[in-house]
């Protein structure tokens, strides 16, 4: 089967800094893969390129056979790519339920006419989107928290809301940007379970950016490694563990992996 996402020779520079250089990545449909690399390796920049927040200088992003380069973020979302953010970006003063409902925006028929006159199935759509959001909250384990203001939720729950919000757009591919950063070991275990269920129960292809090597090695089928904006390795977790270039990239500059996982990347 053709890969769901094919990135070909993607490059992006900011001034003189080449944040992403000539990266090619292929993601299998229905797979669970990770993108890893030391701080500043260009992982988040790559996500921002994939979701249209940055525009690539050169290269192609083929999603389901369509080129996403030059598409706006909302168009990328409508095409079926959803994401979460490294530093949680919920709509803090909206309720948890409203957050998830906004996530479904690209799947809704939005017109002034329907809104003002409540015609054309407006009410049915509102009921349906509310129902969908409630189901997603149940799916991520936040049943009954819908009416709380999202800023009042504990940190781990805010991550869950972000995942539910991303799922509300019925994505085919979901990009998690350091979803376990700042979580304690128990929460991390729960999160791993949730990622697996996203793939297995909803059939969504999952790509993670992750620093916690236990998480990465535990759940990934395929890993791509970035360093200084370029891809230096790819393969199964075992292959990556044994790859000398990867070891050099991590250990050559930092002395322990523990240190790596404790400091969230600020890229």
């Amino acid at each position, binding site marked *: 089967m053709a890969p769901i996402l094919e990135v070909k020779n993607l490059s992006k520079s900011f001034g003189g800094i080449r944040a992403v250089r000539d990266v090619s990545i292929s993601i299998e449909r229905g797979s669970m893969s990770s993108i890893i690399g030391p701080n500043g390796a260009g992982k988040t920049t790559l996500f921002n390129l994939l979701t249209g927040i940055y525009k690539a200088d050169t290269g192609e992003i083929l999603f389901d056979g369509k080129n996403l380069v030059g598409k706006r973020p*909302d168009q990328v979302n409508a095409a079926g790519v959803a994401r979460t953010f490294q530093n949680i970006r919920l*709509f803090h*003063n909206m309720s948890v339920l409203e957050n998830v409902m*906004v996530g479904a925006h690209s799947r809704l028929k939005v017109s*002034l006419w329907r*809104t003002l006159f409540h015609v054309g199935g*407006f009410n049915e759509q509102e009921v349906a*989107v509310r129902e969908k959001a409630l189901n997603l909250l149940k799916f991520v384990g936040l049943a009954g928290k819908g009416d709380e203001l999202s800023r009042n939720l504990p940190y781990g729950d805010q991550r869950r809301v972000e995942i539910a*919000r991303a799922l509300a757009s019925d994505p085919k591919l979901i990009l998690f940007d350091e979803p376990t950063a700042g979580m304690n070991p128990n929460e991390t275990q729960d999160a791993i379970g949730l990622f697996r269920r996203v793939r297995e129960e909803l059939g969504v292809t999952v790509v993670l950016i992750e620093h916690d090597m236990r998480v990465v090695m535990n759940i990934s089928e395929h890993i791509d490694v970035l360093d200084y904006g370029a891809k230096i390795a790819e393969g199964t977790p075992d292959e990556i563990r044994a790859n000398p270039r990867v070891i050099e990239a991590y250990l050559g500059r930092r002395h322990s992996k523990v240190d790596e996982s404790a400091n969230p990347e600020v890229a």
Partner: protein
Amino acid sequence: MTTLTALSPQPQPQGWREIIRRPGPALALLIAYIAFTTMALFGLDRTALWYPLMQIIFVPMFMFAPFLVVSAPIKTIYKVILGGVLLLLLMPLLGIYNPSWLGLAIQICVFTGLALGLNIVVGFAGLLDLGYVAFFAVGAYAWGSLTSPAGTIFTVNGWSVSPGAFYVFLIIGAAAAALVGILLGLPVLRLRGDYLAIVTLGFGEMIRVLARNADAPINFTNGAQGLHGIASPPVPGFVISFTASIGNTLGFRMENPNAVAQQLSFYVIGIIIIALIVIICRRLIDSPIGRAWTAIREDEVAALAMGVPLVKSKLMAFAMGAAFGGAIGVLYASKQTFIDPDSFQLLSSITILAMVIVGGIGSIKGVMVGAMLITLLNLSMLTNLSLQINSLKNADAVIPIVNFHFSDWPSELEPAKYGRLLFGLILVLMMIFRPAGLLPEKRRKLELTERREEVDEEPMIRDTPSGVPQERS
């Protein structure tokens, strides 16, 4: 606020606060309040020494009654009945009795409509617009230039429209302003906050300067001289006869029943427009469009990544806000019968913004309260304060103990001259004591109280030994 009431012990069941929260006593109290203020206004003696002061007290008391009705803990059916009685019976009667009150009520409708329109842009979508009055001007000039005998290109060539087209022009004015709103929106969409505010401020001035200079070579606006004799919609015959018969039956002396009937019809049109605007605002905010606006206000990048089309949503906010301004502009031009470029100064934009902020940015009811309060202050209370001091001067009144003669009151200290000072002072006090407005939108209220709590918590976070961010659970 909610937490405070939850934590503090419940008030004693027999306390007066508790009693008026029950539906029965609340209804009785409300009826008594309305009856009292209405009777007080009917009973005012225009020649009395303290007449202006009485107006300062009782006119706002009466005008705020609809908000009390809406907020009272009574059944919806009673709210509808009392609201109807207030707005459609008592206010018209008081208006026939004293047309200046009717004029005031129309001005309140005008500014409430403008504040609600601006609230869509600033409150719902979070786009700071300092040139909102431009859309108001577009509506006003659309109607004015086509009906004024001032000799614009339209009327000279015989393209003037009949006064009966007024109702159609409410929609045309709204559409024209919406179009201008989109034209403004397109180039400024990438701007946020301060930058957007500066550009919209410039845009507001541009429209005013355009109105001032678009009299040559082709006369569109009649320039600085303004447009006079703008047409008013024809008043149905039954309204005139109704007004006259009410006046005769109740024994009001009326100089010009036709003019009063005209004002009465403006009042009814104003009330209907405001009702429509409120319904539209509520439908918008409880819809995917409203949620998209709130999301943009909260976090533009996240909203975009969640599939909210930024350009389309922002343009819709600009267009909707502008449309309300345009429709109200048509009403205003027609009611004033004269407009000139100075009717649409930057100060008006800022006043409308102040109404939104004082009332409670984003909250529909709050914005209406803010609009009413500031309109009353500007157009009624401050002028009446001046009148009161003048009448005390003329009567040579003396404050007993300090032996102050009102005739010694310097004419430089006339309150009307210090309107802006008082206005500014009120804004400063508001921002200190009620930063979220008089009736804050629910989530903004929470936002502000949360922030205060966060400030208290901050030292604890700094004290964590490892310097690693702690969970905020």
